[in-house]
Every structure is written in structure tokens, then in C-alpha cells.
């Protein structure tokens, strides 16, 4: 058994898992509130990465200091992604809130296709090199197999998780979100502005997606308009794995999926890397449809 390979795969699995977690949160929160798979969520992540890339290049040409570039690019990427998330909901989902679920799902797929091609046409269909935004951190050299961008990804993910947990558990808006997800009509009757809660959910999901997009693009070093789709689907798989609607479940599912993919690619075959996620999904849905941490729910008639 090669220890070095094992450790390397462990860290790369954790990195994947962190990114899936940042994305899966958006899925699971939106699903929890309006029972919709937001297929276009992966596109928001992609748009976040593109915005960051564009802004970094602009600021580099303007000769800003390195730290300012990172901070500003990340900030703008987050703000713009959340604007996209908000607009997306207003255009594609809000008008059909009470329509059958099939309609919303088709609308979501349409939005995903639209946003992908919007970026393809407005920017390029080629892979663009993404600058390394994360500087080297010297003290990490002591840990073999861990590089600084992976470290930053773990830390950021952990911080985002903590902030989100606090937000949902202890704030007023978190309380309204929980109320809306339990029973939308009842929440409305109790004076919760449901439309605002839904919008805020989309915004929060987009913020975490943008953070994930920027971090992973900087780690991998290249992006194109198609990156959001597969990442989005896999993050959804992770959310289902953990039990959709459950936030700790989404995180757990993401790490399980990330590690499985990493070890699967390392020890079995990297050609079939993408297959693992889907096989996993099918197996989970057959044997434990409510996911690892989800509550089993019977359908109301």
C-alpha cells in the first residue's frame, strides 16, 4: 500500500468534497424551501468563476496589489453571482410557483441551457487559464501532499458552514427559512414574507456557489462555460446522498462523494471517474431514498 498516494488522494477527495459541499448547500436549501431542483445552480457557480477571472485580469492590468485583486475579484464574483441567482428565480421560477413540478423542472433545465450558452457566446467556448489567486503558505510545507490552495479550500468551506449554521439556527431570517420549508402556506399566514425568504435562499445559495467556483477554478487553473453542469449534477448527487433538505446531510454527502470519486479514480480507473457519482446515486435512491441523514417522509395524498 502506497501511503503517499493514499494521503494525496485523501486530500484531493477532501478538496472535491469541500467544493461539492459549497454547491450542494445551494441545492439543498432551495429544495428544502420550494421542492425544486435548481438545475441552473451549477451555472451560477460557473458565472462566479468567470466573473472572478474577468475581474482579476482587469485588476492585474490596472496594477493593483495582489491581495486587493483577490479580495475585490472574490467580492465582485459573489455579488454578481447572487444577482444572477436572484434574477434567475424571478424570471424562471417565480411565475410558475404554483404550477406542477414538471413545469418548474423544465424551466430550470431551460435556464441552465440558456446561461451556459450566454457565457459561451458572450465570452468563449475555449478553456481559459485561471490565475492562481491563492498564495503559497510556507508553514504548510511541513504537511506532505497538501498544497496551500487545498488548505484554503478546507478552511473556507468550514467557515462558510459555521456561518450558515449560525444563520439558519439563530437568526430571524433563518427562522423564517425553516418555517417556510416546513409549511409554506402556514408560514405565510404567520406573517413570513415567503417570496423574500425564497429570494434570500437563492442569494445565499449563489454566494456559496460563487465561493466554490472561484476557489476550485483557482485550484485547477482553467475554466470554460461547461464546468458548471457536471459540478452541479454531482453536487446534487451529494445533496441527495446526504438527504436532500438537510444541511449537515449535504456536507456529509459531499465529503463521502468527493472521497469516493478520488479513491475510485486513483485505485480503479480515472476514465470512469464520473460514473461513480451516478452509480452511487442510483444505489442510494434504491436502498435509502431519504439519504444518509434525511428523514423518511411518506407522500401526502
Amino acid at each position, binding site marked *: 500500500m502506497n501511503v503517499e498516494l493514499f494521503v494525496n488522494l485523501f486530500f484531493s477527495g477532501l478538496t472535491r468534497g469541500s467544493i461539492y459541499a459549497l454547491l450542494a448547500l445551494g441545492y439543498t436549501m432551495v429544495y428544502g424551501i420550494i*421542492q*425544486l*431542483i435548481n438545475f441552473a445552480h451549477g451555472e451560477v457557480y460557473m458565472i462566479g468563476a*468567470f*466573473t472572478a477571472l*474577468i475581474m482579476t*485580469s*482587469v485588476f*492585474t*492590468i490596472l496594477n493593483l496589489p495582489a491581495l486587493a485583486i483577490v479580495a475585490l475579484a472574490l467580492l465582485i464574483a459573489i455579488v*454578481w453571482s447572487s*444577482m*444572477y441567482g436572484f*434574477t434567475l428565480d424571478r*424570471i*424562471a421560477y417565480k*411565475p*410558475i410557483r404554483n404550477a*406542477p*413540478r*414538471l*413545469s*418548474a*423542472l*423544465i*424551466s430550470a*433545465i*431551460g*435556464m*441552465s*441551457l*440558456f446561461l*451556459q*450558452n*450566454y*457565457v459561451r*457566446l*458572450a*465570452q468563449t467556448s475555449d478553456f*481559459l487559464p485561471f490565475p492562481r489567486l491563492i498564495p503559497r503558505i510556507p508553514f504548510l510545507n511541513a504537511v506532505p501532499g497538501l498544497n496551500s490552495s487545498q488548505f484554503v479550500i478546507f478552511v473556507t468551506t468550514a467557515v462558510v458552514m459555521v456561518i450558515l449554521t449560525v444563520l439558519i439556527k439563530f437568526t430571524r431570517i433563518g427562522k423564517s427559512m425553516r418555517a417556510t420549508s416546513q409549511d409554506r402556506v402556514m408560514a405565510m399566514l404567520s406573517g413570513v414574507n415567503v417570496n423574500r425568504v425564497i429570494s434570500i435562499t437563492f442569494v445565499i445559495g449563489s454566494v456559496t456557489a460563487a465561493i466554490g467556483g472561484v476557489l476550485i477554478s483557482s485550484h485547477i487553473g482553467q475554466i470554460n462555460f461547461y464546468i458548471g*453542469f457536471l459540478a452541479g*449534477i454531482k453536487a*446534487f*448527487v451529494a445533496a*441527495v446522498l446526504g438527504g436532500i433538505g438537510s444541511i449537515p446531510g449535504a456536507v456529509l454527502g459531499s465529503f463521502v462523494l468527493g472521497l469516493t470519486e478520488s479513491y475510485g479514480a486513483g485505485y480503479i*480507473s480515472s*476514465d*470512469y471517474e*464520473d*460514473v461513480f*457519482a*451516478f*452509480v452511487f*446515486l*442510483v444505489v442510494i*435512491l*434504491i436502498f435509502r*431514498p431519504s439519504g444518509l441523514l434525511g428523514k423518511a417522509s411518506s*407522500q401526502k*395524498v
Partner: protein
Amino acid sequence: MDTLREIRRSALLAAWFMVLTFPIMVIRVNTITNTIEWRWERLILISVGSFVGSLVWNYFQRRKRAQGGPRPQTADLPADLPADLPAELPATDIGSAPLTPPVEQRTWVDRGLARVGMSRATFRKPAVAVPLIVAALGVAIAYPLVTSLYQTNIMVSALIYVMLALGLNIVIGLGGMLHLGYAAFYAVGAYTYALLNHYFDVGFWVALPIGAAVSMLFGILLAIPVLRLRGDYLAIVTLGFAEIVRIVLTNWSSLTLGPSGIRSINRPTFFGLSLSLSQSINLTYFIALGLVIITIFVVYRLENSRIGRQLVAMGEDDIAARAMGVDTVRAKLTAFALGAVWAGLAGVLFASRTTFINPESFRVWESVLILSMVVLGGMGSIPGVILGALLLILLPEYLRPLSQYRLLVFGALLVIMMVFKPAGLIPKRRRLYRLQPEEIPVPDAGGDS
């Protein structure tokens, strides 16, 4: 006043979109030479576009709201309901109240026909229907003889998509299951023929039923894990299945020749005659036409069959259908298997038409394209689905300069259809059964019961 507010709202929206799309639309960075290109002219495009778009969007939203959803059917209730109803209504046996004959919902098609003094029934009269069908067949048969080879080729691909869309319509339109992996079955059909032809030199006609059968097998294979799933989960599992099929086709190079694909697949033969290229394209056209006619016939028969009705019931409400004695497991299996058969046939035809296939032809967006056809035309409506497929294949062909915007438009189309016209261009007509009004027992005002 109202229009002023509307305009102000749209102007605000235009400003929002200008800000929103600014980084992606205006700035373009060349990462090699490190230069920025500012494309300010696009900002004007965005502002005008979103301003007009918003006005149109709002207009249609208002119109939709004015038309409202299903109107309350007050006609069914007696006009003079007693003001003070007794607290407890007497038990009424609605089950035995006679039903009126089925009433078919009227759609814009019916209203349009009524304006010129016709109805759908007009087309059911043999005196009208027979000449119409004969004329349509005549046009279809004469088409390759009077047009160029290029036109015929486009029409063949349109016909293949008509088959695919009608097949998918069985699963989505009747069964109400969002199937996002339809291209996988198309791929299975195409690869079945390509591989049989490549390794064993099997001809088109033998491969056609084999392709359909193999594809059906895969359909059942997929249906088994999704039997317990509904809605979103079903969509994502079918999507995953399609990706698995594509990845396996790409990576199993020793069998499928990998991403470079299989070339020089034989075109269809005709009783061993040697055909020139143009003749064989015409032959392909007629085969496609024949298959489409068979498909239309089968789906029409299916719609009114026992299985078809079971599927519709299941699509409407899974649990209610089960309660009414529909074997939903069998219905789901049937829907997936039947859908897959048509994809398999279309796949074999596709492989023989292009003579070259590779896994790239069967990406997820191929499934979404077929889905768009079904959605645009009208889920569950056969003429609608045919129209949708023809529109989505032929329009981009004739609007070549705009073809790079094709997918962008399809995406927008899916959203717009869902928001404004979820039933599609030619909506499916549903039969409505109503209780005969006079048979609803009304409690006496005295309340002595």
C-alpha cells in the same frame, strides 16, 4: 398612469440587466496578450433588449392573469342555493349520478377552427379526412423527387427527430415522467447497428429490429431502478444513466473505438440493388417516412388503449391511479420500454444515414433538445409534438446565420413556454367527465333531514 408605471418599471429592469450582464457581456479579456476589450456597444443592445423584453413579458403576464386559470364551473351548481345550509349535509351518492358523455376541452385550435365554421369533428369525417391524408402523403412522397438532395437530407433528420419526440412523448406526455436520458437509448440503437455492421457486417434491415430490441432491454434496465422514484429524482437518475452510457461508450475503446467513433457504416440496402448515393439518400428518406407513419399510427392507437389510459392516469397522480387499480409498476416499465423502442429505431436509422457516429452525438443536450420539441409542441399532443420537432429542426437549418444562437434560444424557449404556455403550441385535449347538473341532490332549505 398605468402605462407610465409600466415603462418606469421596465426602465429599472433594463438598468438592472445592464449592471447584471456587464462583466460577462462587456468585458472580454485576452489572457495571452493581457489586454482587455471593452464592448460597450453591447450595453445598448442589452438595455434596449431587456426594456422591450420586459414590456412584452409584463403584457403577456397580465394577459395570462386576465384569462386566469381554470374558470370556476359555476354552471354545474344550481343557481339558487339556499342561503342557510344545514350544518350537516345529507350523504349523497355521487357515485351513482350519471355522467355526461365526455366533453373535450376547447383549446385555441378549436376556437380558431370555429371561427372558420369548422371543428375538429370536421376532420374526422371520411370525406374530409381521406383526401387530406392522401394529399399529405402525396406531398411527402413527392418531396425528395422535386427538391434537392440537401433538402431531402435535412428532412430525413427532421423525420428522425419526429420519431424521437413521439417516443419521448410516451414517457413524458402520457406517463408524466421527466426523462432526461432519452439520448442514451438513441445511442444504444445507433451503436447496436454500428457495432453489428462493423464487426459482423450485419445489414440495416436485420439491425433495425435488433436495435429496437436492445434499446428496449436498456429501457427496462433503467426502469427497474427508477420504479420507486418520482419527479425530480427520476429526472436526475435518467440523466445519470445517460451520462453513464456515454462515458462507457467513450472509454470502452476496445469495443466501441472510443471517442473517435465508428465510420463507414453501411447505408440501407434495397433488395440487394446497388444504389447511387442520391438513390440511397432517397431510400433513407422513404424508410424514415415509413417509420414515422408507423410511429404516428402506433402512438395514436396507444393513446386510446388500456395501457395509454393507465399511463395518463399515472401521469396525473401516481397514488390515485394505484388506488383505482392501475398496475403502476407495469405501466412504468411499459412506458420506458416503448419509449426506448422508438429511440432505438431512430438510432439505427441515424447511424445508417450519417454512416459515422461517435459518443459526442449523444450528449445530455441531445436529450434536452428532444425534450424541447415535446414541450414546445405540447406534452401529450401528437400533432403538437410533430410540429415541435419539425420547427426545432427545420427553423435552425433555414436560419443558418443564426445557428450559433440555437441552444440559447432553446433554453429561453423552455422557460418562456413553461411560464406562458405550459400546454404547448397545440395543447393536448383532455376529456372531461361531468356529473349531470340536475342530478346533484340539493338539500332542502328547511333542513328537516
